[in-house]
């Protein structure tokens, strides 16, 4: 599939800053995400990567700068002093974004299919029969059509996260934001979620992913962005970024992962020996 890259980026951040009280958590962030690009945000905990991602959905109200979703300013009216846009306008700009959370955030009192079709029926005003068809198709995509009538509590964490992805995809977003989608999962369940995400990337979805899964970043990302103390310290293709030696913080961060992998490698070798 060839994707024509329009001049306008899918997502653009210009000088975005965010404070919690007197604590500046994001400094002057500039970032562009092109259509069909996969960007991974990495960095130590507390580096502001989740706050940055949440700012891209206006779940955090950024204080400075601008976030453009397909050319439209997100959350604020143009000009100063800052004034929130109407909810209707915010929803309109947001409607091209799908969000997946660390804690899944499924609605426990609705069935799996109910979770997926709720917004189709209430927001898109699609008839329930058709919504059901689309919901089942989405669940098929994440391999969970057979669980349509189950309730979230009856599913494993990995299955719940796949339902959450289907719920977001049902609204046909152009951009998908993932906030540490595998961090709340038991290690053996991480793979199934990453598999769905890889497929999505292969289908040409524009994605921004906050993650600790370096393997996923190396394999799938077009661009990896390293954040530290609320600033973008380094960015580039995975091959390039993982070999940048001029940034001591990045080196240290990556070394932690390599050490851990080396440890597992040693264990495996010992076990087979």
């Amino acid at each position, binding site marked *: 599939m060839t994707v024509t890259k329009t001049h306008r980026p899918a997502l653009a951040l210009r000088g975005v800053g965010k404070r919690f009280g007197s604590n500046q958590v994001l400094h002057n962030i500039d970032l562009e995400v092109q259509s069909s690009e996969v960007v991974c945000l990495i960095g130590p905990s507390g580096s502001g990567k989740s706050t940055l991602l949440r700012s891209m*959905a206006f*779940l955090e109200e950024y204080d400075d700068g601008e976030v453009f979703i397909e050319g439209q300013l997100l959350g604020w009216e143009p000009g100063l002093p800052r004034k929130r846009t109407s*909810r209707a306008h915010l*929803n309109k700009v*947001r*409607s091209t*974004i*799908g*969000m997946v*959370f660390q*804690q899944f*955030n*499924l*609605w*426990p*009192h609705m069935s799996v299919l109910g979770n997926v079709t*709720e*917004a189709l029926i*209430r*927001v898109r005003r699609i008839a329930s029969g058709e919504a059901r068809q689309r919901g089942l198709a989405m669940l098929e995509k994440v391999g969970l059509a057979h669980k349509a009538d189950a309730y979230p509590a009856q599913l494993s964490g990995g299955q719940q996260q796949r339902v*959450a992805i289907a*719920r*977001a995809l049902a*609204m046909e977003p152009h951009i998908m934001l993932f906030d540490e989608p595998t961090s709340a999962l038991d290690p053996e369940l991480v793979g199934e979620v990453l598999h769905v995400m890889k497929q999505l990337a292969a289908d040409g979805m524009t994605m921004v992913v906050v993650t600790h899964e370096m393997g996923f970043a190396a394999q799938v990302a077009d661009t990896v962005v390293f954040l530290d103390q609320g600033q973008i310290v380094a960015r580039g293709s995975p091959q390039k970024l993982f070999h940048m030696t001029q940034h001591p913080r990045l080196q240290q961060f990556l070394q932690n992962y390599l050490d851990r992998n080396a440890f597992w490698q040693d264990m495996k070798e010992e076990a087979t020996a």
Partner: protein
Amino acid sequence: MFDWPTLVESLPLLAKSLLVTLESSLAGLGIGFVIGVLVCSLRLSLHPLWRRLGGAYIFVFRGIPLLVQLLFIYYFLPRIGLPNVSPLAAAITGLSLAAGAYIAEILRGGFLAIPEGQLEAAHMLGLSPLDVLVRIQVPQAVRLTLPALINEMILLIKASSLISVVGLAELTRTAQNIAASNYLFLQTYLVLALFYCLINIPLACAGGLLERRLKRRLA
């Protein structure tokens, strides 16, 4: 000591008036629930003015004795151009307004127990605030607070005995009338107490059962 034939004679009348008691307390619970949801939303709103307003509602309607509220409404409604308000309407209004304040406080606990992320997910999908309230928050809050809401129903059935003061022939008022004519005060009022027990004790048992089940599921 017991004059059984006379007592048995009064039973159909009491049973009929039990319907008025149940009707007014159920209506009070239903309308009170809607008021409770609204007041609770005010209390949890981001805007301090709305929060104050919700707090004031709860302060007033929980602070004033129900009997005084009922009398006030009964005499006040004609003053504001509603002269033909029936005692039943006045009674239901009074019960609903008071129940709304208590239910608001009950629901607040339930609302706060719902993880914030679920609401963020709903906002991201574009659900309107009303949809979030009606489809996501209320159903879960009710499930979490069902035992407390059943308890509120018991309180309302008991409180409805006070609507006898606005002249409504509910259970207590009917028993009063019967006792005044047969002079069997103790016996008639014992039967009256029995009527309340027959409704409220099963309700209390159901509430206790639900509460234990909820605790087990959350544990």
